[in-house]
């Protein structure tokens, strides 16, 4: 057990300050968790102090130390490039055919940085403040401050790499405001910022591969973590082309394996994004923090039929000029929207939130859309008996600004919409619906980004630390690159300074155990020979998660979901049908392992949501709302990170709480009325 867990007394099971605890029967209370690495003192000095205190590793010794990095998106590629050039031996793994495919590439909007180039009152402190507030006071202030602090270095680094950010006529960088923020701090490369930043990190990584400091394993998937003598010492990976199960040993392991939004089946995540690397680490002792925190993005293209495999996000900037409405009367829902009279339209956001209107935060816009569709006033095709869509109407904007001006601003998004739906958004209102986009939960890490397993570090979306209960626009790219370029390389050296580590061989019991567990799992999937496809289980899991652990959760719904998921897991192991062999590319086999892990994660997400008897960020507990139906936080009871320890299959997970305290910022309730 790492020294970050204190020996304080566990709270008695089932009691929560004398209140009824919904989740009491589903978990075991554990010891509180403290992030022991966060430095004390003024917040502005903490990162500088930590960097100075972190021990150094002599360049000659770096060659003797080895690092495994799983995942090569913004966080993984930037970390691999940086640690490679520092002189360590780095091995990186990704499931795609090239690191350039990582899903960071799909981020559209931009990346925040406190450069204050517009002299509009921005500062490191303001970026920090906005981020903590936006996360509904459920993130760590020390981490967020550091993120804001290094944000400026990220822009310098990317520009030096040749990332073609938007520029003004004078040749200097342009900025825009984004995601409801009142200062212009977002750097962007048209609607493809994520792509350009990832290509920058990818090129830096390829440069190190050519230099021989980094070895790249593409089409490889981590299937198990090796924990030997209490430390993370390697991984078991499967070569997805040959099926070869490989052992890779190192002195330290970094997971940069992204988020798990695909637990919902339909999401904006890439098809291959999965939780396996993180979940296998969780089963080996890494705590999973705030797993129920999922960002639901309000402006996605709605589902068109049961064949749908994924959802496409459209930039939120559309809400600047589009007006959102549904028919007042259910009877009008299948009419051509152009034939519905003005007085028969319900511009519900403008009605309920007159001061913010269509620009209310993501969670409020999302939940309001779900509510009107649940009332039966949704529009678009009926899928499974319900119309899930609301209009995003540009008719007024086109009349006010002219078609050309609208095309200049949003043309590429309109084209994308037309391509996917076959409808022309210039003449018929667009239809949008919320979709799962990003997860704020992930493996618990301390200030050094180290998990509860010594030697296992976690970066980017795979960790939990920086976003709280909500993620603001343009802050995910910032976190990925901050972790990989500027944070991890400093904190990992403090750990590596303990090296050289005792070599372990492939015959070490921990290695043998991990390998055996992988080969047995593969063997199991290939021999069940049941009747249902892997995808059908994934889809069913997704429906349960969306219905009961999506935008709105209730005690009854979550308990029902847990029962359903347990039943689904049983059936999956008995009745899944995976054809083919291990010894060649077998996409069904790959998916089977991932879906098995998603099922276990889904159950934990529901237990976490059950425990969190408050509404915060996008996590609306039906039982916790104001008289007006707004989200109601309970800071007195829930200002903590929930960090879950695996206790075994069919065992209750153990809940460790890390209290969140704020010294540089005051906690406030949100109001968007």
């Amino acid at each position, binding site marked *: 057990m790492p020294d970050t867990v204190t020996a304080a007394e566990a709270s008695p099971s089932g009691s929560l300050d004398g209140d009824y605890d919904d989740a009491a029967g589903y978990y075991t209370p554990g010891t509180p968790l403290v992030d022991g690495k966060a430095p004390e003192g003024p917040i502005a000095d903490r990162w500088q102090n930590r960097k100075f205190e972190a021990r150094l590793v002599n360049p000659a010794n770096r060659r003797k130390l080895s690092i495994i990095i799983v995942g090569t998106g913004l966080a993984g590629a930037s970390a691999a490039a940086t640690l490679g050039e520092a002189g360590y031996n780095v091995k990186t793994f990704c499931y795609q055919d090239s690191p350039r495919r990582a899903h960071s590439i799909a981020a559209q909007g931009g990346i925040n940085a406190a450069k204050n180039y517009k002299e509009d009152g921005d500062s490191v402190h303001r970026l920090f403040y906005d981020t903590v507030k936006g996360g509904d006071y459920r993130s760590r202030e020390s981490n967020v401050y550091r993120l804001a602090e290094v944000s400026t270095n990220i822009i310098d680094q990317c520009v030096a790499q040749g990332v073609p950010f938007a520029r003004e006529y004078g040749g200097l960088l342009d900025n825009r405001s984004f995601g409801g923020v009142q200062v212009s701090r977002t750097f962007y*490369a048209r609607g493809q910022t994520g792509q350009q930043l990832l290509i920058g990190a990818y090129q830096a990584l390829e440069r190190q591969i050519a230099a021989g400091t980094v070895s790249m394993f593409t089409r490889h998937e981590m299937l198990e973590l090796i924990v030997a003598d209490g430390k993370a010492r390697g991984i078991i990976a499967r070569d997805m082309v040959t099926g070869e199960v490989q052992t890779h040993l190192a002195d330290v392991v970094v997971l940069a394996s992204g988020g798990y939004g695909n637990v919902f089946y339909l999401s904006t995540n890439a098809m291959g994004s999965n939780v396996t690397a993180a979940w296998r680490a969780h089963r080996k002792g890494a705590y999973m923090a705030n797993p129920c925190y999922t960002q639901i993005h309000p402006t996605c293209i709605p589902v068109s*039929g049961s064949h749908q495999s994924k959802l496409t996000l459209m930039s939120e900037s559309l809400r600047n000029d589009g007006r959102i409405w549904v028919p007042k009367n259910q009877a009008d829902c299948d009419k051509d929207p152009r034939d519905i009279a003005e007085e028969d339209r319900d511009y519900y956001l403008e009605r309920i939130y007159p001061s913010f209107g269509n620009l209310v935060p993501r969670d409020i816009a999302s939940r309001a859309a779900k509510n009107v569709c649940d009332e039966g006033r949704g529009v678009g095709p009926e899928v499974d008996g319900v119309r899930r869509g609301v209009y995003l109407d540009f008719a007024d904007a086109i009349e006010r600004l002219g078609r050309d001006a609208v095309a200049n601003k949003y043309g590429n998004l309109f084209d994308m919409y037309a391509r996917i739906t076959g409808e022309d958004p210039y003449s018929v209102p667009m239809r949008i619906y919320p979709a799962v986009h990003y997860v704020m939960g992930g493996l618990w890490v301390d200030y050094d980004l180290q998990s509860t397993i010594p030697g296992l570090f976690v970066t980017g979306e795979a960790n939990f630390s920086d976003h709280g209960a909500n993620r603001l626009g343009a802050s995910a790219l910032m976190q990925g690159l901050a972790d990989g370029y500027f944070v991890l390389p400093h904190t990992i050296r403090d750990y590596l300074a303990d090296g050289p580590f005792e070599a372990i061989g492939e015959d070490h019991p921990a290695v043998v155990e991990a390998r055996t567990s992988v080969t047995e799992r593969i063997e199991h999937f290939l021999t069940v020979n049941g009747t249902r*496809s892997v995808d059908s289980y994934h889809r069913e899991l997704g429906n349960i998660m969306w219905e009961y652990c999506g935008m709105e959760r209730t005690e009854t719904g979550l308990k029902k979901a847990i029962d359903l998921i347990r039943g689904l897991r049983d059936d999956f192991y008995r009745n899944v049908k995976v054809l083919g062999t291990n010894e060649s590319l077998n996409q069904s086999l790959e998916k089977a392992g991932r879906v098995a892990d998603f099922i276990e994660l889904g159950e934990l997400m529901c237990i976490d949501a059950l425990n969190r008897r408050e509404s915060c960020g996008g996590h609306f507990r039906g039982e916790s709302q104001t008289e007006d139906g707004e989200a109601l936080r309970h800071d007195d009871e829930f200002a903590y990170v929930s960090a879950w320890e695996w206790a075994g299959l069919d065992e209750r997970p153990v809940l460790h709480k890390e209290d969140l305290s704020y010294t540089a910022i005051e906690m406030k309730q949100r109001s968007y009325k």
Partner: protein
Amino acid sequence: MNLTLKIWRQPDAVSAGAMHTYQLADVSPDMSFLEMLDVLNEQLNDQGEDPIAFDSDCREGICGMCGLMINGDAHGPEVTTTCQLHMRSFTDGETITIEPWRSDAFPVIKDLVVDRGAFDRIIQAGGYVSVNTGSAPEAHSVPVPKDDADRAFNVATCIGCGACVAACPNGSASLFMGAKVTHLGLLPQGQPERDERVVNMVAQHDHEGFGGCTNIGACTAACPKEIPLDVISQLNKDLRIAIKHGH
């Protein structure tokens, strides 16, 4: 819609492949091309036949992972990625032929999946700016004219899907290389390594077995990101100048 699908099946890199014919009913025009293949795969799985392997990941037209020859065209009849091609582009009763990318430098791994590792190796040969982390100057210290930055962005949008190679009768990757050489060549940050970059990338390209460019233009016609043909002229110009400089 009801469709007849003729699809290339090849169990692995060393086995011989062949076209197989499948019937698929009830295809919705709203499905993406890959969702149509998902549905076919569910049908094959039910029948106990190995599902067809194909690559896809983001399904938003940006990661570059997907790519099929559809009726002989890279990414099919429209200028887009395969994941953004929808079945409304086809007609009821149509026969659609689906093959993997055609190129010796992209060997087939299984069915419709090919190995595009050669693209990464071309980037390794010089498709980057050598800057170490933490040593970058202040971003505003190097202004870039807006027109150059915009044009650099336009060509930097290459997604590395390989459609240019698959469409080229010579199997040349000149459009892919030209996009990167032009992107970095337009920016002040890319100048110090400009000569070396183009020479090394072209050498790696030839080493990988890609063919020479004869300015046919099939690459740019197939490119889902509409990378213009003149990046190849820029590539040739940069190469000529580098050789003149003695590289």
